[in-house]
């Protein structure tokens, strides 16, 4: 039967990791996440090779592909580009049709978008070139504390007395962290404090974009359970998080590729 199936790919070339997703019809059949490394185009070629092998198809079987992410320009594939905000919007819409607001906490930026019931952007905002609102902030603090990224969430949730940061600047927060360690603050309390600071920043962006529920958290930030909780607390609502939050934009891109294919071939189906 595989001969009649239609396949679509999404490639998300992020600053920290490159993600790929392959759909058969509207079903996700293969995905891959790899650290971006120093040469995006090499990593992109490798990851596409890997994900297509997982899906058990060759590149020419793809009926559509869309590339997104900060590094989309350097992708070694001839495919249309769509902004990652649109891809996150579509990805969240497919996973949670009730999504009206998307938060994407990535390696470089935090983006928030209000979306339509059809999964299109209604309005969006990005954190300016500022590390406090992005995953980078967590990475920096985790490095100082010598905590593995995947341990940040669970560890922070054991905190009883989160540290309060007096600054909203990641650079100053780094030296503040060092001072707090010197004063004897626990790693868990520092991480919980970082989550609070980030959540406050995100909540401000959400207010400006006129947030509506449901709110979905995607991107690498979504893998940090403690952060999701802190944002939920700041907004007094429950934040939805996909199973593989980092994959959302690649998934959304593949879905948009499918949509595009449908638009240009009216009589076709999956």
């Amino acid at each position, binding site marked *: 039967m595989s001969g009649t199936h239609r396949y679509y790919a999404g490639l998300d070339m992020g600053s920290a990791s490159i993600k790929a997703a392959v759909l058969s019809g509207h079903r996700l059949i293969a995905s891959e996440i790899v650290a971006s490394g120093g040469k995006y185009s090499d990593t992109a070629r490798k990851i596409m090779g890997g994900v297509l092998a997982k899906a058990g198809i060759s590149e020419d079987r793809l009926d559509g592909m869309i590339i997104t992410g900060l590094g989309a320009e350097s992708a070694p594939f001839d495919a249309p580009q769509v902004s*990652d*905000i649109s891809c996150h919007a579509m990805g969240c819409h497919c996973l949670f049709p009730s999504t009206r607001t998307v938060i994407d906490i990535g390696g470089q930026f935090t983006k928030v978008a209000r979306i339509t019931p059809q999964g*299109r952007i209604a309005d969006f905002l990005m954190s300016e*070139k500022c590390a406090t609102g992005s995953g980078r902030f967590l990475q920096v603090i985790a490095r100082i504390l010598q905590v593995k990224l995947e341990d940040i969430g669970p560890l922070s949730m054991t905190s009883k007395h989160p540290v309060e940061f007096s600054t909203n600047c990641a650079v100053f927060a780094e030296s503040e962290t060092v001072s707090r360690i010197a004063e004897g603050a626990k790693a868990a309390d520092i991480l919980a404090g970082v989550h609070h600071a980030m959540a406050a920043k995100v909540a401000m962006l959400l207010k400006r974009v006129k947030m509506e529920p449901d709110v979905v958290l995607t991107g690498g930030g979504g893998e940090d359970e403690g952060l999701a909780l802190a944002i939920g607390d700041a907004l007094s609502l429950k934040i939805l998080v996909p199973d593989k939050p980092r994959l959302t934009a690649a998934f959304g891109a593949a879905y948009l590729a499918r949509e595009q294919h449908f638009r240009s071939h009216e009589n076709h189906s999956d």
Partner: protein
Amino acid sequence: MMTASEQVEKLYVERGKRARELRKKGKKIIGYFCCFVPDEIITAFDMVPYRIQGSQSEPIDQADAYIEPMACPFARSSFNLALKGRYDFLDGFVAPHSCDTIERMYHIWLHNKPSSFNHLINVPHMLGSGSTSFYRSELAYFIKSLEDWSGRKLDPDRLKDAVRLYNRRRALLRELYELRKTDPPQVSGTEITRVLVAGMGIPAEEHIALLERYMKEIKVRPVPKADKLPRIFIWGNEIDDIAFINLVEESGAQVVMDDLCTGTRFFWDDVPETKDPLDGIAARYLNIHCPRSNVPQMETREKDLGNRYGYIGQFVKDWGADGAIFYIVRYCDTCELEGPDLREYLNSMNIPVLMVEDDYSTSTIGQLRTRVQAFLEMLG
């Protein structure tokens, strides 16, 4: 002979070259900041007005030894060029008190890079008839100091001639902007930026001759099919480099209209030809739409927004804009604080707004790509 487009490109790239040539022939070159300094006055003295620009493609590598890096990067970049000797061809330096940065920049510039003639023009912040007469006397004082420095009296008839000359240029620029109303526009936002910047360092009559030829060239170009791309109105401060507008257009949009210091703000309104030319000049120049100025408050919020931004609403309607981009050079308090009200006004007209803050550097343009793309996808 070069085509007009080639000449525009040359003037755009080789900034200051023509002014240097003219100076060798004995002309005095008067450099100035912002849209508040009347070109007419300088021209009536038979001197060449030169709008000071920075450079978005050069790092600010000297100015930070004198001023803090958290000041307006446009002002810092301009001063940086001055420190590197690139404005040594200026015989005069004039700064209006447009914003606090430019006002302080006057003193710093004067102290570190004094010209032969230096003058600060006080510009009132609140608009109204009292302010206009105040500004008129400030301009009379500016004239007096040019007279003292040059040893020549200003001939009022020459000032009237200059008013007519610049109104002619304004009319041509408005005519050029008319060509942006079609789909697609007959002239792109990137091209417009080049033409405007090219004209900021040459005498008005040369810019006029160039514009006339340029427009002829544009009008005989083949007319492309309607492309239905989103049409963008752009608001902000100094865009004296094509980089950002080019990014917007490359991302699949047409930049069709603007309210920028380097765009309509400096040329749109004519100077009325009054019996005493200084009356018309003072009224026109004080009332340019710089967000640093305040108009008297109206009784309701709606009326107030209409009173402040009605002209923008008209631009957006007449040029058929689908969305607005606020492009703000970082640390421009006036623009950043004006942004929210203008956003509210435009949103009430169903015009979505994207606000970007940038470093006045072409190296940051790539980072803005995602934002612009997402905004265009939202409009499309």
